[in-house]
């Protein structure tokens, strides 16, 4: 019977996993650049996890649905503006920027609103009752189900047909790999948004409140910080960033809006947050970029189906080896 077992491992003469080293080396720079673009999207969503975790020590499991609501908002905004799936219109630059900003605002408004509503309906009653942590997680799972199913019942199981505002065209070459306009916009806008968030948390009065609650909620309350307002603000910022990420995601992956589409991306963003150190804003950026690149390498090395496996294996490995992530938890650490 032993030979039968070995025949399972090597059925039809091929192994379970095939390595495409040549393809990996050929595509190395292209994968790196594409990975950075994906990674900056992950990082934006990861910031939402990180901020909420930093303040509430809670993994907001429904954050992936906050993201996907933003993606739907992008789709409906473009649809409402008269754009249709299929053809990519030729637009003047200023008009294009205007439409993109409009979509961005809509996505941020919807995602931010969803996040705040989620906090009101699902988490605040639990906090009032002083529920243990696991109860929050189960509620989050329930909320995630509800938000997903509302989309499913409304729009059905199929992903929305992609609406493209701009073509993914190469602008210049870096190490022989094409850098496209969408990649440039995604990476630059994400980094700017993250720097803005970092500034907001570290420089403003509201940001000081967030850090104070993250460090010690009770003392912060005694010092006159309105804890509930800080928590709402935290969810709002996370939602706004998820909405922005949704726009870039829809530009990069036009068929992104599906009721289940948030789940995988949410898990990846969470992985990114954990990788960098959950509760750490800079960690989210680092983790997101690392994960995006690692995933693309894995995809070209093992094949397309292994992309998600790489992300999940990375998640398990990171949590096992260094649960506090590369940079450690730090939102609560006092920094002047």
């Amino acid at each position: 019977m032993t030979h039968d077992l070995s025949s399972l491992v090597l059925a039809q003469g091929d192994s379970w996993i095939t390595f495409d080293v040549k393809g990996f080396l050929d595509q190395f720079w292209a994968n790196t650049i594409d990975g950075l673009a994906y990674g900056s999207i992950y990082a934006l969503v990861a910031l939402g996890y990180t901020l909420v975790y930093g303040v509430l020590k809670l993994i907001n499991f429904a954050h992936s649905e906050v993201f996907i609501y933003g993606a739907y908002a992008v789709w409906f905004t473009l649809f409402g503006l008269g754009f249709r799936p299929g053809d990519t219109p030729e637009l003047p630059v200023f008009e294009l920027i205007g439409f993109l900003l409009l979509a961005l605002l809509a996505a941020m408004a919807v995602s931010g609103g969803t996040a705040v509503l989620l906090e009101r309906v699902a988490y605040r009653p639990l906090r009032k009752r002083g529920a243990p942590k696991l109860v929050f997680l189960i509620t989050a799972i329930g909320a995630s189900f509800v938000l997903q199913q509302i989309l499913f019942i409304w729009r059905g199981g199929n992903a929305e047909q992609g609406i493209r505002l701009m073509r993914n065209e190469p602008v210049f070459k870096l190490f022989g790999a094409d850098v496209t306009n969408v990649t440039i916009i995604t990476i630059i806008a994400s980094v700017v948004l993250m720097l803005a968030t970092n500034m907001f948390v570290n420089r403003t009065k509201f940001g000081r409140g967030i850090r104070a609650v993250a460090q010690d909620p009770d003392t912060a309350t005694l010092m006159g910080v309105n804890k509930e307002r800080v928590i709402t603000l935290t969810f709002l910022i996370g939602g706004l960033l998820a909405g922005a990420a949704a726009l870039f995601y829809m530009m990069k992956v036009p068929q992104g809006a599906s009721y289940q589409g948030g789940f995988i991306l949410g898990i990846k963003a969470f992985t990114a947050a954990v990788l960098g150190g959950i509760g750490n804003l800079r960690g989210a950026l680092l983790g997101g970029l690392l994960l995006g690149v690692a995933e693309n390498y894995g995809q070209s090395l093992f094949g397309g189906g292994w992309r998600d496996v790489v992300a999940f294996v990375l998640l398990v490995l990171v949590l096992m080896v260094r649960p506090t992530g590369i940079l450690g938890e730090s939102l609560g650490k006092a920094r002047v």
Partner: protein
Amino acid sequence: MTVTSTPTAPAAAKRRRPISEWWNNLPRVQQWLVLVPLVVLIYLLPVLNPPILSTQPGYNFPIAMFEVSRYALVAIGLNIVVGQAGLLDLGYVGFFAVGAYVMALFTSPDSTLHKLPFLIVLPIAMVVTMIFGVILGTPTLRLRGDYLAIVTLGFGEIVRLLADNVDPLRGNSGFQAVGHPPGTNADGSALFNNSDGTPWYWLCVTVIIIVLFLVGNLERSRVGRAWVAIRDDEDAAEIMGLPTYKFKIFAFVSGAAVGGLSGALYAGQLGFVNNQKFDVVTSMLFLAAVILGGAGNKVGVLLGAIVVAYVPLRFQAIAEYKYLIFGLALIILMIFRPQGLLGARQRLLTYGRQAYQRLLGRGEQISSDGSLAPETPGEKA
């Protein structure tokens, strides 16, 4: 063993669940007198096909009953992990999938492996799943709470993605003609076939009764007390010298074995295994069964499993909305009744109360609610 009610705390005594109290204080013989006819009735259900309970014409009733019993078995297994040991496992479907795939690999003609009879593969499936439980548990059980939940979620997804991507596991095309237990009808056709749920239901109920006995014994043993200790306060348990890590792995492996068993039964009844049936949503439904009923309470999780599996089959009109309904139910339940429909009934503490009564002549009021319940003042004396 006659137990008197506690006269010193009448108000508090009223708050305790009277039915479970009454039941626990019945002599063993009287419990059996109630239980045996109940079990007979449960066995007869698919034959009787009672008009109100019946899921027909929407869904074949015996097969619906098998579905319910399968969920019940899964819930008992997951309850060991979540309810007893307090380890939130979001990837339990992974163990279920491993059991189903082992059954398919050893019995389906689509697999290149040596073929074995169903009854031999059943324990093999359990053992392989237990090995997977060790593989997953050894590195990850040092994590706690949320992190453990996410890692197990990742594990469940990895299992599903492997089924997608590893060629010998045949991805979407899957395995046809998965094996079934021996036995033939009077006319020579196979007793356990895919269209008749009744024998499968009987088999599954029998398995449930056996598993309930085994798990019940485990709970009353040193192991069960260790699990409860870990669930209630892991740090305290560790400090008191309990090897918590060892017991957590033990809980994981026991739960995995039951998950693998139910997966193997499921594969046999359906006769077909592919990668579509083991997604995270299924895992969440399993968890919903345990949480709805009341984690830590065996009767509770059975009730939860019946609700989760039976309601969408009986009321086909709401089947489309079942995930929405379970999501809402989870939120509302966690806000108003975090311990589930029936909270964990801590027999050990009940015994402790009896000991108090004997020694001091008065009762010690102890919270009888589950691990997930908030500690409200007044429940603890």
